């Protein structure tokens, strides 16, 4: 196992990016509402793609392909929040209510001191 520091740094970047992608996928399934899911879908996904592409560019060296990889990063960094923003705006206009915690939804009732936080 004698790897060059270029391979070590690139591999570390790729691993961090894939971990972010996995966290984003789990959050997309676990969160309760469309808006929280949009939060979980967009930000870790974009950051994971950024880390993975930078890691691949480090592995690849100073070539034309690395420039194309960074071009993908710039494009996704612009496009992914724009797409999520368009989806969120149309969701608001179609009347989806944001999720609130169960003990805050019941404003007429006295406050529950047991602290039933989740679901």
């Amino acid at each position, binding site marked *: 196992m004698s790897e060059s520091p270029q391979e070590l740094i690139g591999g570390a970047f790729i691993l961090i990016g*894939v971990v972010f992608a*996995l966290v984003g996928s789990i959050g997309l399934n676990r969160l309760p509402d*469309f808006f929280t899911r949009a939060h979980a879908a967009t930000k870790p*996904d974009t950051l994971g793609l950024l880390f993975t592409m930078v890691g691949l560019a480090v592995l690849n060296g100073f070539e034309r392909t690395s420039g194309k990889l960074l071009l*993908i990063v710039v494009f996704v960094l612009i*496009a992914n929040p724009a797409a999520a923003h368009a989806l969120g705006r*149309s969701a608001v206009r*179609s009347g*989806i209510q944001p999720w609130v915690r169960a003990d805050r939804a019941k404003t007429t009732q006295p406050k529950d001191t047991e602290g039933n936080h989740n679901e």
Partner: protein
Amino acid sequence: MIIFVIVVLSIALLLPFYRVLRGPTVFDRMLGVSVIGTKTVMLICLTGEFYERIDMFVDIALAYAMLNFIGAIVVAKYLDQTQGEPR
């Protein structure tokens, strides 16, 4: 090492299909499709690194990213005009 990364990313790519199948609203499904598209771009580039032909695969990934973005924007505009008030 690269094969381990590809396997983990494939698991992360299978998880949003559950949200696409059983999203309560159509926006959840579109969000899942967008996430799948972004992760597919990552998977294409890692596959190119695996086969050592990344100079070919990176062009496919760039085209796929543009197509994914256009699809999400078009569906969002369509839903905006059909379900909400017209702009």
